[in-house]
């Protein structure tokens, strides 16, 4: 057994986290920053943080991840990292020449109280930030929240770039939340189909799913432009996908720029996608084209065709709040039974929402925020499931417990596809169904006694 020391008996733990279902804020800030065109993320702390975040994102995307660091020394940790930051700004603009630096703090710089906003002022005063270049920053202490919080904080910093002109631009801001480049691409496709002019931020499509062509571009074509970000304050409204990932930025634009917002679930699965598209056409006063109704019908069709294999199958899920909420709703909607649900990210709201969604299930549902995968594994040992959905670390549980397993979430370090094929929207729903059915039916084909082995499924 790979996780041979995990006991079935569940004991209370108040200080020890084992096999976390989250990581720290800065990596979220770094991922979000990569969704700005021409942006170099910067980690204000010791260089290890930056190295770890780049490595993890690289393993997830099999793509180069460029980011700089303040490379704190012991001295800097005592006297403050301002000097390092000033030096970094100068070196970065000189050597890499990005349009914008998006800096985030770390537990180190937060603990010693470095203030990036103040450092930025100083840099501007000293002309360290060249004409037409930008510098934004987010406070992302690793000891608060999770990677999701860091993502949200950096996205909020993007919103803070808004420069309202007083003239509406006819755009709808769409904040996708922490989804894959392929998902952001798909959200744009859907929004265009509904005929809604929009600014999507952040947007990592074209950045983290790039081609191999013999050239290396540190700053690829993709990403939300600075111009777009500045104009979000003139938009007619904001659709924020995911309370945890996107709401803060949306609410900021609402309060500060009077851009009304609506907080929706991430559009995974049938209902959440229905609500997203309905919100789009409602806020923009457009008509949903037949093409989307057709895609929707295809998803409904596949649900009905394969319902017998999904019905009453028990599922264990681990991941991030916004994703899990939408996925849980999707699983319930296709008559599956999500019974163990864990996120490492804190937030009682999460447990409340999951309980609402699962209230009609003929089953006791285990749900925990600020939980860990050690607990999830113990729950599974106590109440086995037919399917496990989560990031790559789940593979250890899947192999030990011999569970059908669908990789979904962050990070996925051992399979390809997530960067190219969306799981949002109706087409994404078809992909999720294909994957879920794939592992369930593979298991059936593996385990059916020979006399019951089926040609047609």
């Amino acid at each position: 057994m790979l996780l041979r020391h995990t006991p079935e008996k569940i004991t209370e733990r108040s200080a020890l986290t084992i096999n976390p279902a989250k990581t720290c804020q800065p990596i979220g800030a770094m991922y979000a920053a990569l969704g700005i065109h021409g942006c170099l993320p910067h980690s204000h702390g010791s260089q290890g943080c930056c190295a770890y975040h780049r490595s993890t994102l690289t393993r997830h995307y099999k793509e180069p991840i460029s980011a700089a660091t303040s490379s704190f020394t012991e001295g800097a940790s005592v006297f403050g990292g301002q000097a390092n930051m000033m030096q970094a700004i100068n070196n970065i603009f000189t050597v890499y020449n990005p349009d914008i630096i998006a800096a985030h703090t770390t537990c180190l710089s937060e603990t010693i109280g470095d203030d990036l906003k103040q450092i930025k002022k100083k840099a501007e005063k000293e002309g360290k930030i060249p004409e037409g270049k930008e510098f934004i920053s987010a406070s992302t202490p690793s000891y608060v929240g999770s990677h999701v919080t860091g993502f949200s904080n950096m996205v909020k910093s993007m919103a803070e770039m808004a420069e309202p002109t007083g003239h509406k631009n006819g755009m709808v801001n769409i904040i996708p939340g922490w989804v894959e480049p392929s998902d952001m691409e798909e959200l744009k496709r859907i929004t265009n189909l509904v005929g809604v002019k929009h600014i999507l931020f952040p947007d990592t499509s074209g950045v983290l799913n790039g081609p191999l062509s013999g050239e290396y571009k540190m700053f690829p074509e993709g990403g939300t432009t600075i111009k777009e970000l500045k104009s979000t304050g003139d938009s007619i409204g904001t659709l924020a996908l995911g309370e945890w990932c996107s709401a803060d930025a949306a609410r900021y634009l609402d309060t500060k720029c009077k851009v009304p917002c609506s907080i929706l679930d991430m559009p995974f699965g049938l209902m959440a996608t229905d609500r997203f598209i309905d919100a789009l056409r409602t806020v923009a006063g457009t008509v949903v084209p037949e093409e989307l109704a057709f895609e929707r019908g295809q998803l409904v069709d596949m649900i009905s065709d394969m319902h017998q294999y999904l019905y009453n199958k028990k599922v264990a899920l681990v991941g991030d709040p916004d994703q899990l909420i939408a996925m849980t709703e999707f699983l319930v909607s296709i008559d599956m039974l999500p019974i163990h649900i864990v996120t490492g990210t804190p937030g009682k709201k999460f447990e409340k929402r999951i309980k609402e969604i699962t209230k009609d299930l003929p089953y006791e549902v285990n749900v925990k925020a600020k939980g860990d995968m050690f607990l999830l594994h113990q729950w599974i040992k106590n109440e086995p499931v037919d399917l496990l959905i989560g990031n790559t670390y789940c593979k250890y549980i899947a192999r030990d417990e011999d569970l059908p397993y669908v990789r979904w979430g962050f990070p996925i370090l051992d399979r390809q596809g997530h960067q190219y094929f969306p799981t949002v929207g109706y087409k994404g729903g078809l992909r999720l169904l294909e994957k879920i059915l794939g592992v369930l039916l593979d298991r059936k084909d593996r385990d059916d006694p020979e006399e019951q082995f089926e040609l047609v499924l």
Partner: protein
Amino acid sequence: MATATKKKLVQWDPTDVKEELLKKYPPKVARKRAKQILINEALENETPEIQANVRTIPGIITMRGCTYAGCKGVIMGPTRDIVNLVHGPIGCSFYAWLTRRNQTNAGPDGENYMTYCFSTDMQDSDIIFGGEKKLEKAIQEAYDLFHPKSIAVFATCPVGLIGDDIHTVTRNMKEKLGDCNVYAFSCEGYKGVSQSAGHHIANNQVFRHIVGENDEVKPGKFKINLLGEYNIGGDGFEIDRILKKCGITNIATFSGNSTYDQFASAHTADLNAVMCHRSINYVADMLETKYGIPWIKVNFIGANSTAKSLRKIAEYFGDKKLIATVEKVIAEEMPEVEEVSKDVRARTTGKTVMMFVGASRAHHYQGLFNEMGMQTISAGYEFAHRDDYEGRQVIPNLKVDADSRNIEEIEVEADETRYKPRKSAKQIAALEEAGFKFKDYEGIIPDMDNDTLVIDDLNQYEAEKLVELMKPDLFCAGIKEKFSIQKLGVPMKQLHSYDSGGPYAGFKGAINFYKEIDRLVNSRVWSYMKAPWQKNPQLSASYNWE
């Protein structure tokens, strides 16, 4: 298989290349980097000097990691039966979770915590009010769940800053638990200038808290420790296979596939064989001073180096039968090695490679590439010190700077009861007389050709420039560098984690490596960079129907 045809600069002058690398930098940066970029030259009985083990420049995208990574990730990571508990916010523990590919074999029901990730997951309240209580509780919860023989605690950045006294906490818990050795590492990420400081901190504590804990004498006629081998991709398994075949007993590997008990018994070995000079040479020194165990430098990367190292060990023990066995083993293993190398050489000879990793592999792997007829045109280390470049003779006059000063040096002296010189002064002298070299390492520079570029702490910008200018057939570094290099159409091999391959050490490892490099440099994919309409954009005047 089709090889991508790459245009090579007909001739590149290393001084031009160096100039190119520096051109774009601000003056201050250029000055500093200039000292870390060396154009190799053969000098009369001295080695050209390079600047190393100095601070990374803020804002310059470096390959380096931090002290915590060197301590928890590199050194302690591979030890299977110690619960490695990270005290700090969740990230540091998460990122070091199963990401280094050091393999371990705990058998069907041995203790193995390497698949687990333990953290105190510090919250803001802990930062404000201190995390000692939480750490104490976490240790207790870990103990109650697993009853491990040992729990190691690792400090991340904030811990040092808020002044948690982890050493007192662990000392107390060790006493309280009784049957569990608990100790801590002050390996905050901001210490030192690279992972190297973390290796040092880890090794010191292992030496202080574990080595010597078990005096029971293990069976075996020729007992050695293998220092600085981390069993990435199973290297250690292959080396152990060979040693066993030769009749040599490996008491403790520092720290690949290791257990607490191996460390505890390390002082019972009769020779220390050092693989990675950088990460552990000082432990070899301490073991000699305190217990009287001599050390030699070995290298099991490459079939020839492996043979050489085995002969050196045999020569040390000076046992006829052992010497014979070693020769027999080499004779058995080499034919297959040579067969494969002969096969791949047809496709690899003349190809060029660049290597920027660690502080030993960039050196060790050159031999392996030579066995394939490949030439190393530029190399350097990520976190080495000058002695790793120039040789140990420079150690006495290395200046200790502000960053090194705080990395503890342990003062050891001979152990009253257990110090026992394995060889008499006379025997040592005799061996040296015969040309046998103890505690000797000449560094990478002497092994490299003239006009090759030796570069310390290479960064992303310089790497890209190097590849553009010198068009190597293969580039070796780490995961962060892999894909920016490959985007340029040049295959990139990770020499930290080996991507997905290994073992590459020893004889079987050499065979694996030959095949892997053959696959990489001869993959058809490098010929697909351009689409037909990009290769010839102009349209044929008329439609080309069949």
